[in-house]
């Protein structure tokens, strides 16, 4: 059976000639889902768009061929390319909220993709539209089609995106991180829709994602991209169990897992941006197995097994190491047993809406308490109420045995110093007009702890403690990577020696490998400094690597509260069970893939 799409030697560069994506080749069979995994800046989205003959502003496709059937779409003129897009090859974008036209009803947006390719006008396609809506499990009711995108939930918006993509029964569909930003439950249903539709209509799919676990749940074969090149290619389970490229191996090591509380290992440094890539292996500067030969030239993508290849000259040495490289089991110190923070009957509101209903929690000395929930669960409101950033709450929050006022401004300086908050997005939490030194030193001045040389000295020490150097004090936030910024935010929180650290989704804006390094750092600091910590996250597996206790929130109420290991291994409440079941993880994914292989007809190549 011929491949549905065959990409050979794809090259994409900036309009000024800097290579962005190089030497990308792969084939996808009809009905197959190929995964492309990479962190931000790896070029994965650029490759996905190239399959539609599209390059974003500032980029151009410089070479190679994209054969759909026997037609090279890179050779097509504008009009032929237009006819191909949306019919033969379609695209599901990353962010459905911004990709659906806010001024048009979804019915019109769905109808126009049919009209653009099949012609017809008026109500010609009503039948087909209704059918497509049913396929993606949305209502086919005409009044539903008259809704505007903002009247749908994120998951529904993405289903509309899928409906548009599948409407013309394409041969190839490119899915660009379609589940980013969706809750795990919604993600699970969107993923299963994709899986079913691709299989039912024999559509080839390219699934682009930063999330190895999600890709593994969907794709049999996976390409791992780094700095614009495919560095490893193979069956999903092979990549995870015996990676042949050190980058893949470290990436797998950085993924939090639901089972077996391992500490996470981040990858130090960050990927080189286009134009700054080294002449040899792009991963070499961050690689622990780096030898001088690595810098000589870019290693070729060489086979290391059946359907398995890697771009590493030491691949043979890398493969057997995989299990040994995994992190140590988490060593969580037992909590001291005295409550440092108590929430009693906390009810919080936004305007007239009650978003937290009677929350009761206790944070013990030296304890890390994870607060887990989907969007709208009230987890961030809980954290913000503790820090006094959200003011509209009633009930009691006690620091030790002292009642806290509702807003930070009305609390005593001492209690403000004791509770420090780290924000979700390190791009927003640092003042871009202040140097790192000014930002980190600010609490010293505000709390009257130190000033002048003494303050500078403390800032330097603090920066070293978060694994930056004292020289960072003179830099501005825009000179830092996301991981570095979050380290600065941690330094600012810790410099006033607080007793409680409130971390609000501190890793959700970061790449997996950076997330691992930050979680590692936080865990280490918590142990070294004897901190108590409230760790808010939507990422269930991450909890295992850092928290002793976990509280699961749903719609503003506590669903389950207990020891982390116990809650994750043996959840008592249906909500928690469902949450865990829907969380993609490498273990379940690879297991599913094995089962799936037996079910699915083997595709001949």
């Amino acid at each position, binding site marked *: 059976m011929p491949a549905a799409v065959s990409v050979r030697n794809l090259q994409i560069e900036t309009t000024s000639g800097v290579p962005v994506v190089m030497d990308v080749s792969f084939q996808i069979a009809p009905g197959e889902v190929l995964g492309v995994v990479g962190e931000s800046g790896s070029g994965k989205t650029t490759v996905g768009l190239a399959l539609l003959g599209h390059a974003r502003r500032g980029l151009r496709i410089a070479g190679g061929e994209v054969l759909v059937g026997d037609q090279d779409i890179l050779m097509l003129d504008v009009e032929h390319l237009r006819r191909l897009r949306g019919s033969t090859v379609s695209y599901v974008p990353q962010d459905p909220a911004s990709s659906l036209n806010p001024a048009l009803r979804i019915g019109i947006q769905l109808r126009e993709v049919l009209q653009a390719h099949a012609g017809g006008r008026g109500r010609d396609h009503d039948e087909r539209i209704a059918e497509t809506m049913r396929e993606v499990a949305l209502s086919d009711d005409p009044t539903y089609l008259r809704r505007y995108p903002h009247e749908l939930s994120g998951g529904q918006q993405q289903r509309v995106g899928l409906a548009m993509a599948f409407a013309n029964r394409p041969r190839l569909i490119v899915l660009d991180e379609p589940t980013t930003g969706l809750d795990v439950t919604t993600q699970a249903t969107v993923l299963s829709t994709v899986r079913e539709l691709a299989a039912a209509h024999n559509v080839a799919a390219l699934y682009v994602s930063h999330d190895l676990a999600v890709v593994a749940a969907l794709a049999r074969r996976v390409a791992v991209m780094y700095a614009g090149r495919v560095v490893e290619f193979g069956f999903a389970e092979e990549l995870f169990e015996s990676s042949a490229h050190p980058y893949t191996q470290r990436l797998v090591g950085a993924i939090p897992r639901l089972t077996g509380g391992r500490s996470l290992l981040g990858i130090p440094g960050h990927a080189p941006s286009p134009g700054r890539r080294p002449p040899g292996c792009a991963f070499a500067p961050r690689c622990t197995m780096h030898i001088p030969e690595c810098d000589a030239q870019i290693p070729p993508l060489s086979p290391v097994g059946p359907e398995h290849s890697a771009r590493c000259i030491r691949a043979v040495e890398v493969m057997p190491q995989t299990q040994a490289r995994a992190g140590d089991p988490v060593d969580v110190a037992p909590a001291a047993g005295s409550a440092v923070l108590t929430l009693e009957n906390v009810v919080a509101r936004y305007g007239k809406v009650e978003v937290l209903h009677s929350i009761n929690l206790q944070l013990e000395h030296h304890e890390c308490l994870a607060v887990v929930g989907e969007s709208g669960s009230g987890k961030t409101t809980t954290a913000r109420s503790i820090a006094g950033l959200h003011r509209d709450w009633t009930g009691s929050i006690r620091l030790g045995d002292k009642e806290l006022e509702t807003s930070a401004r009305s609390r005593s300086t001492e209690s403000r110093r004791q509770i420090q908050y780290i924000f979700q997005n390190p791009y927003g939490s640092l003042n871009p007009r202040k140097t790192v030194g000014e930002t980190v030193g600010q609490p010293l001045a505000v709390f009257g702890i130190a000033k002048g040389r003494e303050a500078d000295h403390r800032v330097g020490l603090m920066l070293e403690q978060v694994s930056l150097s004292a020289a*960072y004090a003179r830099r501005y936030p*825009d000179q830092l*990577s996301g991981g570095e910024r979050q380290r600065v935010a941690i330094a600012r929180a810790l410099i006033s020696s607080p007793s409680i650290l409130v971390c609000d989704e501190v890793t959700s804006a970061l790449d997996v490998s950076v997330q691992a390094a930050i979680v590692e750092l936080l865990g280490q600091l918590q142990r070294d400094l004897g901190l108590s910590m409230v760790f808010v996250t939507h990422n269930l597996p991450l909890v295992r690597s850092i928290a002793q206790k976990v509280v699961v929130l749903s719609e503003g109420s506590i669903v389950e509260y207990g020891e982390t290991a116990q809650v994750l291994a043996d959840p008592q409440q249906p909500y928690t069970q469902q949450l865990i079941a829907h969380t993609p993880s490498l273990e379940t994914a690879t297991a599913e893939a094995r089962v799936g292989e037996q079910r699915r007809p083997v595709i001949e190549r």
Partner: protein
Amino acid sequence: MSQTGQALAEGVGTPTPPVRSSTLVTRAFRLWRTRIGALFVLILVVVAIVGPYVAPHTASEFVAIPNSPPGGDAGVLGTDYLGQDVLSRFLYGGRGILVMAAVSTAIGLVLGVAIGLVAAYTRNALDDVLMRAMDVIMAFPQIMLALVAVSLVGAQTWVIIVAIAVTTAPRVARVARGAAQPVVERDFVAATESMGLSRVRILTGELLPNILGPMMVEASLRLTYSIGVIAALAFLGLSPDPNGANWGTMIQQNQIALATQPWGALTPIIAIALLTMGTGLFGDGIARTAAGIDRERGDE
């Protein structure tokens, strides 16, 4: 555990180039429009300052027959409707406009930025009250409010300055509020709130530095308009000294003779045009640079 050492390596080859507000003006000067704009303004500022000292005649001296074209006794630019030297009057006529425009714009900017920042930060009834008050003032076009003020009190320098400052402030306040609103929502402001930093320090130390870019653009735009309004008032015959040398007055007085001696009106027209285009180009250069920097940083 060698995490510390490894993480230090993160500093190698940082992804974004160093870009800061302090470099905004420097970077803006890489654009031709900024340079040309600054050059125009510089030339006219020099004319306004040095002009009176190098003028061949005084501003109100009879030189030759009224409305003589350039040449001979009439001087390089000819004479005006009273037989005064156009060149000399041009050299004398800029100072008043420039000083009044600069002072009134500066007052309007300070007032407007203060109001805009307070409104953006409070997000409550005070915000509504302030902005509604601004709406009331903005319901009058600048020139009209200035006209009414002049009609009531007289065309004195301070009246014109106050009228322009008062009408500049609400327009600046709107822009400042708009620029500050997204900044207020950002977490670094919440971070300083959780430390208990005073409101004044948050406004001046956290918010203000982050809206300097748009405020510089607004400043040059407002200066452009202030010059225009002051010149227009003079053109309507409402300047502190109706017979004194003033570019706006000159245009009005010599408009009649456009067909025979265009230089009497054309010289001040060119001066005002260069000045306002200069401030306009400069502002646009800053705006483009700021937008470019935002793009480089990625939407933060």
